[in-house]
């Protein structure tokens, strides 16, 4: 009998020596037949790869191989496959080599200095100067990397951008410094007088321009009848606009106030009238919902808007956006051959009688039985300045106007602009620049403006400067108090630190965990944290794609820009609420509440919600609730005429789990429909399952999209699908066969489990909440750090997931965990 005790060490040694060989053996045995000298599928040659080491050049291929092995995508099901233990050892071996190489590569990579992106620049200017000015709207768009537009390596510089920085800095300083006489405040009331302001002859008395809408389109389709009345006077009807253009010369820059009064007529029951006020440049100034009932005598709206000095015309546009104008069937193609594109103009001249459109021109508003507002009166006043010179000027200049001491100005300004303590040299340099400008002939204020402009073009302003010692290895430098304050404020506010953060940085206590925790809580409660929603959530959820979706109007006549905007706002409001109320992040997967307005409630088929403004609503309908049931997500993952389960599946893997599938191989065509018969979208996708080369990835992607098939291409619930034989010609009825299919929202996952519809999907996702937490932690870390993630971050991510899970998965826990992580506090 063999002596086992003596043979064991040899056995162990040979196992160790052969584990690498074993990995190579596994790959050779199972992979080379398709990825070798005879065939090289997808251009991959495993045999040649095995001969080289894992290094920088071969790293991407090894990572791909690793990923396919981890998901058991490869070898395909119809070929000989390794045993589970073979999979295990091979993966472990390759992972170890990959991690080793990646770690070395990561340590060598430069750490990019992060410049302010467009949004951060605008917010910083707002907070630094306390002026109402949004620069950067004409800056070139920032490039995104790793899904976010604030990643240092992705943010490029170009002469165009730097030219804009220069021009913008000049303008900002001009706006911030206003001296001279206080502009006089003027008030003007515009009460309409039929005689003077009737639109019909387009007469405009000098100094005043008023346009009345001249078509009334209030009609009620409830009983199928519609009536149109022509009004040419001072009334406001549903869906109509009133424009006011007030002309005033002189110094107009400042805050302008508008007050609108009007009298409601014919309002029978309780009604919520939604108003939108736009500035003359089309910018949204305010939205108001006003409750009106039979007893309401007058409606008054008060708004404020900032107008800049170059505007001689202060304009406002008032719209009553809801009202009785309901979804007119086939709105895009009015039932008449008239070529008026806007409903206004069609209804101006016609009324529907017995189902036929007839020309008609009534004469007086009293003929209308429908609700409207009359005696609209505008009172406009401005420019308002609570302080003169304005606060921005006073805090910038201090006593400069009397003592001409530039040093004092910069001693006050630079620490805020550069977000740290500054040296006397830095102050002197700019003071000298100002002196040189004065010597060249500029007056004191003009010279100071040049100095301030220079500060705004300094890299200390434009970049989030973190200055480790020259020899410091990555991850070893502990950020200074100011550097930490800056990272923190740009994470939660997309803007510069405020006085309290700065004070803590000066005191050196910001790094103290208790202090840091308190600051995070304070910052999340501050209104400036809206930036986290506007920037992080928007990009995490890919909402920008929504701007370019174009659902086919013939199939989705109720989808409009305003509905699209509402769906976007719903998702953003949802995120904001989870943060603000510190709700569990699992609410993103399934929730019993959402935000709705009138249009959304109708779109979702939920109980009516009055008005335009979003309100939080409890959901009793289990089909809704959570991100994947929201119309924004469902629409941006669809095509113009149909749903796209592949897009939805990919979205889920990418945005929910942060594990996107690899892109399709090159030269794979789009689905070629079999034109001989109509098929449901599901049937079209059967190709993915049939073809072994496709099913590797698609068995992972498609099921997640198929279970969402009850939601159509704009997110409405459906139980059947009208399919045509060529999905790109969905609206063509000429000889193209069509059929109606019942929706089948079942799917089988790779692990064999079976899902049926949204209810099962939610359970499935909730069972994977740790994976979701990990994905969200990763995404949030990229955004918070402004860089891609490294291997060295994995430990921190593990802690973040654990901490969040321990606190019932609460959102603020995750945010705190990100801030407390070593990655966040070091460079």
């Amino acid at each position, binding site marked *: 009998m063999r002596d086992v005790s003596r043979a064991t060490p040899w056995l162990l040694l040979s196992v160790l020596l052969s584990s690498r060989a074993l990995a190579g053996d596994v790959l050779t045995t199972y992979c080379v037949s398709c990825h070798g000298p005879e065939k090289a599928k997808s251009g991959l040659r495993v045999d040649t790869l095995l001969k080289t080491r894992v290094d920088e050049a071969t790293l991407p291929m090894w990572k791909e191989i690793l990923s396919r092995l981890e998901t058991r995508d490869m070898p395909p099901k119809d070929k000989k496959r390794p045993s589970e233990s073979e999979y295990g050892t091979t993966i472990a071996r390759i992972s170890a080599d990959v991690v080793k190489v990646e770690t070395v590569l990561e340590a060598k990579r430069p750490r990019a200095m992060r410049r302010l992106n467009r949004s951060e620049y605008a917010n910083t200017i707002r907070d630094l100067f306390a002026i109402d000015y949004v620069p950067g709207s004409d800056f070139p*768009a920032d490039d995104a990397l790793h899904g976010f537009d604030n990643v240092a390596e992705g943010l*490029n510089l170009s002469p165009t951008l730097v030219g804009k920085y220069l021009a913008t800095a000049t303008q900002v300083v001009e706006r911030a410094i206003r001296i001279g006489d206080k502009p006089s405040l003027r008030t003007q009331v515009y009460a309409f007088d039929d005689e003077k302001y009737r639109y019909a002859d387009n007469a405009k008395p000098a100094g005043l321009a008023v346009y009345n809408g001249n078509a009334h389109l209030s009609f009620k389709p409830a009983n199928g009848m519609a009536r149109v009345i022509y009004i040419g006077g001072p009334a406001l009807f549903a869906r109509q606009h009133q424009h006011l253009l007030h002309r005033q010369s002189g110094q107009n820059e400042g805050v302008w106030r508008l007050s609108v009064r009007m009298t409601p007529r014919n309002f029978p029951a309780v009604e919520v009238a939604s108003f939108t006020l736009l500035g003359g440049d*089309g910018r949204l100034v305010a939205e108001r919902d006003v409750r009106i009932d039979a007893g309401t005598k007058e409606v008054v709206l008060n708004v404020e808007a900032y107008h800049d000095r170059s505007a001689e015309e202060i304009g406002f546009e008032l719209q009553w956006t809801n009202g009785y104008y309901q979804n007119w069937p086939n709105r895009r193609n009015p039932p008449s051959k008239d070529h008026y594109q806007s409903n206004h103009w069609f209804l101006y001249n016609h009324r529907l009688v017995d189902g036929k459109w007839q020309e008609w021109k009534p004469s007086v508003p009293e003929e209308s039985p429908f609700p409207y507002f009359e005696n609209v009166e505008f009172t406009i006043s401005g420019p308002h300045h609570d302080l003169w010179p304005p606060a921005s000027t006073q805090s910038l200049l201090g006593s400069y106007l009397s003592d001409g001491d530039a040093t004092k100005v910069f001693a006050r300004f630079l620490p805020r602009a550069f977000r740290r303590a500054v040296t006397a040299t830095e102050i002197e340099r700019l003071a000298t620049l100002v002196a040189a400008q004065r010597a*060249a002939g500029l007056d004191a204020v003009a010279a100071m403006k040049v100095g301030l402009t*220079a500060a705004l073009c*300094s890299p200390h302003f434009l970049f989030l400067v973190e*200055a480790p010692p020259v020899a410091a290895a990555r991850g070893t430098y502990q950020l200074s108090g100011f550097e930490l304050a800056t990272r923190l404020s740009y994470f939660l506010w997309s803007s510069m630190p405020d006085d309290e953060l700065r004070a803590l940085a000066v005191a050196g206590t910001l790094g103290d965990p208790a202090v840091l925790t308190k600051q995070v809580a304070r910052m999340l409660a501050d209104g400036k944290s809206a930036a986290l929603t506007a920037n992080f959530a928007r990009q995490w959820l890919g909402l920008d794609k929504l*701007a370019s979706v174009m659902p086919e109007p013939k199939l989705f006549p109720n989808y409009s820009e305003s509905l699209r905007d509402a769906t976007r706002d719903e998702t953003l409001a949802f995120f904001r609420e989870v943060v603000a109320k510190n709700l569990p992040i699992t609410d993103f997967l399934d929730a019993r509440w959402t935000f709705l307005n009138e249009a959304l409630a109708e779109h979702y088929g939920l109980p009516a919600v009055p008005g335009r403004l979003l309100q939080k609503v409890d959901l009793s309908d289990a089909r809704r609730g959570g991100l994947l049931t929201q119309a924004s997500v469902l629409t941006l993952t669809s095509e113009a005429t149909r749903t796209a389960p592949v897009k939805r599946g990919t979205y889920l893997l990418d945005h929910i789990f942060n594990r996107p599938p690899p892109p399709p191989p090159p030269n794979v065509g789009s689905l070629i429909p079999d034109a001989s018969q109509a098929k449901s979208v599901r049937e079209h996708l059967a190709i993915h399952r049939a073809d072994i080369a496709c099913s590797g990835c698609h068995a992972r992607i498609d099921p997640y999209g198929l279970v969402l098939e009850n939601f159509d291409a704009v997110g409405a619930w459906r139980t059947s699908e009208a399919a045509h034989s060529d999905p790109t010609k969905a609206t063509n009825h000429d000889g193209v066969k069509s059929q109606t299919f019942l929706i089948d929202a079942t799917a089988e996952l790779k692990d064999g489990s079976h899902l049926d519809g949204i209810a099962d999907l939610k359970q499935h996702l909730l069972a994977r909440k740790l994976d979701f937490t990990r994905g969200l932690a990763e995404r949030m870390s990229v955004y918070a750090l402004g860089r891609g993630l490294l291997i060295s971050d994995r430990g921190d991510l593990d802690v973040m997931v654990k901490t969040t899970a321990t606190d019932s998965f609460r959102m603020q826990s995750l945010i705190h965990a990100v801030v407390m992580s070593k990655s966040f506090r070091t460079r």
Partner: protein
Amino acid sequence: MNSRPHSSRPHSPRPLSRRSVLRGAAGALISLPFLEALTSRSLVAAEPAGGTRPIRLLWLHSESGIWMPEWKPTTTGTNFALTPILEPLAPYREEISVLSGLFHANAFKRNAQAGRHVQDGMCHLTATDLGGTPDVAVKNGISVDQLAAETIGEKTRVPVLNLSIDRNATMSFSAGGTPVPVDWDPREIFSRLFADNSPDAKKLAEARYLQQRSVLDDAMETTRDLSTKLGTTDRQKLDEYLSTVREVERRATVTRTWADRPAVSAPEGTKPPGPPPDKDRTAYVRLLMDLMVLALQTDQTRLATLRLGFMGCMYPDIGCPDSYHNYTHHDFKADKQAAMAKVDQHRIAHLAYFLGKLKAVKEGEHDLLHHCVIHYGTGMGADHETTDLANLVIGRGGGALKPGQHLDCKGKPLADLYVRMMATAGMPIKAFADSSGALNGL
């Protein structure tokens, strides 16, 4: 990216002037007279320094396609019959060549990040494959007009004039794919071309230049200081900033040297234009064309681009009130196809107007048009198709080209035409994007 949804509700929160049409009481459009006075009475081109007449390169573009069945002539060669869309060009038949079969293979590759409309707008002059890595922004290449501007741009006060009726989108991209903003405000364009040359204005410009220099010098010095304090691993972006600031300063200096050169005033009798006629697109397009002619005639520039139609344009005044893009989704309905063709013809009529203005300017023994090479193209054909496109080449390039034919280019890269244009204007290049040689047969 400049894709735009095509629904237009009456009360979207956008500037009123952008797409809405103001109507008078009777529903008639308020139309503005073309600014006839703008194209001057002295219709003679400026004498160039050095004697040889420069060749001008112009690129005109309209988005979203063209109705090919009424565009493409049925025969090739010189005896082809003008099709309905091309009808307005009848007086200039000898100056135009119709090119069929050219297209951008790379630019229209299937791309998950950027749909066809985006590619149409962004890649018309770059012929670049935008690339479609998820999570990474698409990357464009340099456009041919910017490439030309880098070469000959400094010979004129304005290196290249990029005009458009759509202020929100551009088809010009500098090296590295950075978008170059367009000029859309006639007042600004005019003042760029004919800056106030009074001593006061010059003093102001000089003062402003010196202030800018101060600011930029300070930025460079500060950046250098900071860079030296950091290790190589941290300085990369800062070094990039430094070189970019240096480039901005260099350009400002180049612009300033122009201020010292003899003043170029607008030809006698030219009245400065007003704001963009948003309510009358025909007037707007033609005003921009007038400005282009002025700029070329006075040798303020030798390169220009103009986008004269975009996806969402509506033309109620010719009976096509729906958006152009909607007509391109005609679903085989004859009336929609007819509307699309009508808009196409309307746009070609603008082109005819432009050619008329160019021909009216004497230049040496010929006219300004003789010394131009103009490309008119639409990024897509009918039905969002991307291989059977409409392309025109107009002008004789100083005698190098022989227009008046319909050429079937059999699937060659459209970039070959760009290479040929560059060569004709004295800038031979070996390749551009997916081209590897100049287009022959012109």
